[in-house]
């Protein structure tokens, strides 16, 4: 336990140290806030202009969550489809890799063309950004399910659905949550890209406008918000993960609580 506390303290110290160093370096070398604002300036901007920033932050969070939600749903379905049979895995994988290697920025103009600027292309971009890691991990998890565990179910004359529900999916959960943590941050990237290109709301749009008027502290304030949202989502999924997949790391707290 003390080991864990010490690590947390060190981790916190590392983060605070980073900002302190940034602040000090800017002060020492008299860096203009048009080039690189100090963290204190960014925080001040966040504080004073909060009413203006708030709706944009909400818009970005909303868009990302909706895109992420769709991404999870489609990702799980596709992953189950691909992972449940060797044939599907071999057939669909090359196409999946092909899709995933398309830079998502390049897709945004197409979405704008189809759906107009605004929320919809942002949601779609967030969605396609996070589908791939989820599909790959869910499919891998299912494909990696030990045949012995499936045999246990087969001798009980379990149906395919029962095997999937009782063995396949629980077995896949650690893979799934690992992918969620990646996908959550990717979804933010997708949203912000789309907002930067074609939207009149959201943090991406806010940062575009701020940079074109050389309001650099506001640009950084946008970055801070994005980082905070990303970390927040990451923490939420880590907590759920520890609750659901503690068995995979043989955690004692899971054994006691579960």
């Amino acid at each position, binding site marked *: 336990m003390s080991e864990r506390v010490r690590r947390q303290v060190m981790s916190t110290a590392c983060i605070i140290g980073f900002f302190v160093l940034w602040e000090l370096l800017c002060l020492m070398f008299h860096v203009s806030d048009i080039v690189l604002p100090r963290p204190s300036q960014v925080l001040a901007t966040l504080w004073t202009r909060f009413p203006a920033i708030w709706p944009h932050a909400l818009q970005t969070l909303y868009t990302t969550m909706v895109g992420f939600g769709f991404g999870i749903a489609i990702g799980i379905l596709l992953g189950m489809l691909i992972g449940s049979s060797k044939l599907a895995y071999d057939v669909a994988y090359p196409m999946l890799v092909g899709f995933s290697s398309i830079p998502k920025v390049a897709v945004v103009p197409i979405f704008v063309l189809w759906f107009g600027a605004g929320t919809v292309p942002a949601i779609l971009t967030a969605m396609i950004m996070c589908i791939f890691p989820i599909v790959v991990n869910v499919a891998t998890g299912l494909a990696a399910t*030990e045949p*012995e*565990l499936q*045999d*246990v*179910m*087969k*001798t*009980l*004359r*379990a149906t395919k659905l*029962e095997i999937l529900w*009782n*063995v396949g999916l*629980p*077995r896949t*959960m650690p893979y799934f949550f690992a992918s969620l943590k990646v996908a959550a941050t990717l979804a933010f990237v997708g949203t912000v890209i789309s907002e930067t290109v074609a939207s009149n709301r959201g943090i991406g749009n806010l940062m575009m406008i701020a940079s074109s008027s050389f309001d650099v502290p506001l640009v950084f304030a946008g970055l801070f918000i994005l980082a905070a949202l990303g970390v927040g989502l990451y923490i939420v999924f880590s907590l759920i993960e520890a609750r659901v*997949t503690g*068995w*995979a790391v*043989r955690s004692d707290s*899971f*054994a006691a609580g*579960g």
Partner: protein
Amino acid sequence: MNAPLAHPKPRAADNVIELEKVRVTFGTAKNAVTALAETSLRIDKGEFVALVGPSGCGKSTILKLVAGTLNATQGNVFVAGREIGAGAARIGMAFQNPTLLPWLNIRDNVMLPLKIVPPFKEAFGAKRKTEYRDRVEASLKQVGLGGFGDKFPWQLSGGMQQRASLCRALIHDPTLLLLDEPFGALDQFTREELWEIMQNLWIEKRPTVLLVTHDLKEAAYLASRICVMQARPGRIVDDSPVPFARPRTIDVSFEPDFVTLTQRLRQRIVAARAVQEIVS
């Protein structure tokens, strides 16, 4: 207590397991490997049959055929008078590894068959916290695991996991119990302890048991009939009854009759191997 084995003449319906000229080959054409040469085997209701032999002799293949996880290349497999896969027989199986699901605690692991197998599954939602829970608890107590229901598999030793795995194989009162070397990976004392538990369970519930093992002593202690198998190609070369009275104790294994029997079977296997080496 020699439980009444009062089956008159075995009728067709009494054949719990029937292999009819079954052959199993793996691979295709030139690379085909015969895992099991044409084999016929009949096991009556309530029998405890052990399949012994060296590794690669096809004993696990027979078990998989009966379990329905492997299809015969040729011939028919009947379980409870029906072709395999048609259902009807209630099968419990324990494997060489405990194969407990790591995300479930011991209680839920043992309860798994009740969730899958009819008629238990229909009432699973209603009874899982009451009747089924008591049933699992009683079963765990029987193998010396009382109070371990809340533990997770990784918190238990290998022997304890294997006990839980036996509970899982038996919890739904299977009419047919398949044991694939479930005691193989255990130390000798744990193994002998589990033999005794296994024997008591069999005497009490009288399922038909098919046990795969490479331990002759284990086979002679537990089984009422031993089939010796031989490798390349796998086939049954000897089929002997085991006449000792039950319940047997570990002392029985030191008596002359017991030793003679295991010696004879041992020689049967060794002789077969010697012939094979000359041939190949």
